């Protein structure tokens, strides 16, 4: 079943503030074989906050997304400034675009990530591909 066709243009409530601690950044860096040197967090660290916003979209029962059929098609980050320890970050997700291609919903999302003062830090654009039920054994396409 396709998702709610009126989804495009909808903005979801902002996520609860996420405190960037040294431990969290250190663990994220270590998971990708890197190490934290005390400066900026790794460039893809804001996905942690954006992922919270995307989860809000995907788990909203009125939207109609079946989580196991979602794959991550595309990702873009545009940074106003790097994330640093001590930041309190919030993400507000808007569905920019919704298209149907071959039975799949292509959902273009934009999460505006702001700091405790409401100032912009980073915009995370994610394209989510919500495959139709007949595609459950289809191994093409992206990754969740």
């Amino acid at each position: 079943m396709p998702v709610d066709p009126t989804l495009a243009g909808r903005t979801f409530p902002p996520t609860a503030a996420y405190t960037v601690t040294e431990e969290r950044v250190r663990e994220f860096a270590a998971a990708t074989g890197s190490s934290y040197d005390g400066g900026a967090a790794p460039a893809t660290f804001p996905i942690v906050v954006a992922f919270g916003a995307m989860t809000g979209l995907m788990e909203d029962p009125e939207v109609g997304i079946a989580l196991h059929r979602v794959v991550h098609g595309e990702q873009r980050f545009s940074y106003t400034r790097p994330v640093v320890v001590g930041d309190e970050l919030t993400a507000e997700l808007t569905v920019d675009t919704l298209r149907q291609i071959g039975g799949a919903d292509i959902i273009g999302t934009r999460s505006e990530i702001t700091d405790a003062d409401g100032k912009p830090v980073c915009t995370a654009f994610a394209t989510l591909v919500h495959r139709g039920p007949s595609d459950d054994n289809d191994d093409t396409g992206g990754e969740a």
Partner: protein
Amino acid sequence: MQTGDVLPEQAYTVTRADLVRYAGASGDRNPIHWSQRVATSVGLPGVIAHGMYTMALAARALDTWAGGTGKVRELSCKFTKPVVVPDDDEGVVVRVNGTVKQVTDAGVQVALEVTCGDDKVLGAPKAVLEA
């Protein structure tokens, strides 16, 4: 960095243990990234790395080339092919290559190529670094 510079290849080994650690660190606990049973039940050849894990490796290469974190202004890619991570101690190697396309006051444009074996696992990966 100057236009046309070919940046030194970065090779990173990815194991199942890394994926479990990343699942915890990122909050993405989708079982296709740690359970063979679930991954194969949805038609995947095996446990695959998070797309964002592979993108993080691309960012790690950029940090290495830029001489530290905090220099990335833009970063984008498509997730085109999965990185299948075997259940052994050797894991799989992801290679990140980069070429400087243009240097302006606005930044350094870098075209990336991220491969696993013969596959390009990210589509059109690119970045802009601080000038």
